[in-house]
């Protein structure tokens, strides 16, 4: 049997899936993993939507909104990385309150979850970021450039773009994303990125999905155990220099999610509500993939 997954070439999921293929972790589990490489996120979503592949990597908010629109996906945790809030090393921005009146760049548009959470926290502190700061949405690479050229004071971007910048030196996180979650009364380390499979297909291929999940678990363990594996993946990470390499590896491992439990699913539901999902139309528990005990 085959599981085909669409991933961003050189994206973080590509690293572990490539490792699965390289080490034969899929055949070990008795299935074959096929990758369909794409160049950007929308392409990946389009692939799974149009049924060209079985699965793709997507974030929880997207899965929720698709669920609301009547297209349920089964959600298998991939990473807990939410993103990062980056400023220059010598910047005075250290708390959410410091953001008032600053030029903020946001990756992925107003729906991006890091930005939504940030706004939630700010509004708890009585600060309306959208109104009091100058917000600019743009593609992440453009944001990195704008930050470097001093056209923006702070950017809210994807974690691997942030990791690269930090690896280069001269940039730091303004404050941890995890702190934001705790400020909102949520557990840190919630798996907000996951492999998604159309629910219909997933329920029909539950054993296959189990095997896929098993190999994903294996690969994360292997990558955590032996740094040597990472050397082989370095070209897939676009051959970063050592600083960025370390930051990327650490970031990836740091994002390894714990298995889903009832408690975590409840937390995820709370997160969804916080980000504006309708509490009556939250993704069903059954859609969160829980490994067989």
């Amino acid at each position, binding site marked *: 049997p085959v599981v085909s997954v669409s991933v961003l070439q050189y994206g973080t999921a590509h690293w572990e899936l490539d490792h699965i293929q390289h080490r034969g972790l899929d055949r070990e589990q008795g299935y074959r993993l096929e990758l369909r490489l794409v160049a950007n996120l929308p392409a990946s979503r389009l692939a799974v*939507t149009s049924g060209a592949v079985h699965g793709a990597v997507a974030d929880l908010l997207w899965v929720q909104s698709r669920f609301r629109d009547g297209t349920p996906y089964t959600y298998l945790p991939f990473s807990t990385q939410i993103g990062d809030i980056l400023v220059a090393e010598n910047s005075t921005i250290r708390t959410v309150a410091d953001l008032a009146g600053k030029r903020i760049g946001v990756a992925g*548009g107003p729906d991006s979850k890091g930005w939504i959470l940030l706004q939630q926290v700010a509004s708890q502190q009585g600060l309306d970021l959208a109104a009091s700061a100058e917000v*600019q*949405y*743009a*593609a992440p690479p*453009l944001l990195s450039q704008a930050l470097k050229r001093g056209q923006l004071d702070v950017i809210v971007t994807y974690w691997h773009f942030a990791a690269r910048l930090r690896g280069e030196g001269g940039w730091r996180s303004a404050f941890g994303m995890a702190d934001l979650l705790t400020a909102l009364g949520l557990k840190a380390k919630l798996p907000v990125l996951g492999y998604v499979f159309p629910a219909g297909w997933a329920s029909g291929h539950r054993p296959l999905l189990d095997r896929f999940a098993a190999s994903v678990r294996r690969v994360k363990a292997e990558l955590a155990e032996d740094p040597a594996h990472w050397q082989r993946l370095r070209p897939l990470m676009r051959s970063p220099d050592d600083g960025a390499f370390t930051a990327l590896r650490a970031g990836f491992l740091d994002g390894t999610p714990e298995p889903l439990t009832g408690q975590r699913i409840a937390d995820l539901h709370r997160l969804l509500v916080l980000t504006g999902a309708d509490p009556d139309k939250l993704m069903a528990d059954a859609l969160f993939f829980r490994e067989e005990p």
Partner: protein
Amino acid sequence: MTARAGQPAAWSYWVVLPACILLWAVIAATLQTPLLPSPGEVIVALRSEATNGQLWFHLAATLARVTVAFVLAMAIGTAIGLAMGRSTRTNALFDPLLVVLLNLPALVTIILMYVWFGLVEVAAVLAVVVNKVPNVAVTVREGARSLDPKLESMATVYRFTRWQRFREVWLPQLFPYLMAATRGGLALIWKIVLVVELLGRSSGVGFKLHLAFQVFDVATILAYSLAFIAIVQLIELALLQPLERRATRWRQPETAHA
């Protein structure tokens, strides 16, 4: 083969499009997939965007960009096209550059403009203009090449001023080329503006389209597209077609009838 008859009946403009919408409605009703919303759903989406004010805000932003870019691109492109079409020397010199600019992907110009000028409005409009000018130039150049030399020498003998030559001799001959450039150009500019907005603006239809695209909200995508298309349709009916009728009246001298 049919001769160009007089003015067609006004109703004939409203046959095929409604028929297509009907067809769409029928297909949508049979398929019942969120990926092909029915016309009704699109109208609901349109109405909701209109009432919450989003539609007007983003449409206005896009329209402003399109207008500025269009005027600039047409003026510059026509001048370049004329110069290149009238002189083989100028053409030979600048043709390779024109080919490069023509085929430079929008992505490249957009990135370069944003990077150099920052994520500002000027960069956005400039990126569009750079993308569109070669297109206008290529079309107008063909027109300039096919100007009638007999009328040229008439204008020389009768000492037409530069302005007279342009207005009385060239413009009527270039008119169909300019119309082609205008129609194709409006469409192209708006498509580039979409990409420009997608990559680095926080307003405009392109920005909204992308948000809708994130969640495959095809109804909203279509709602915004159709809103813009309705405006173009309006321009077409209220501006371009009357202009065209006026300017090409001389082409259709009455044919004899019994």
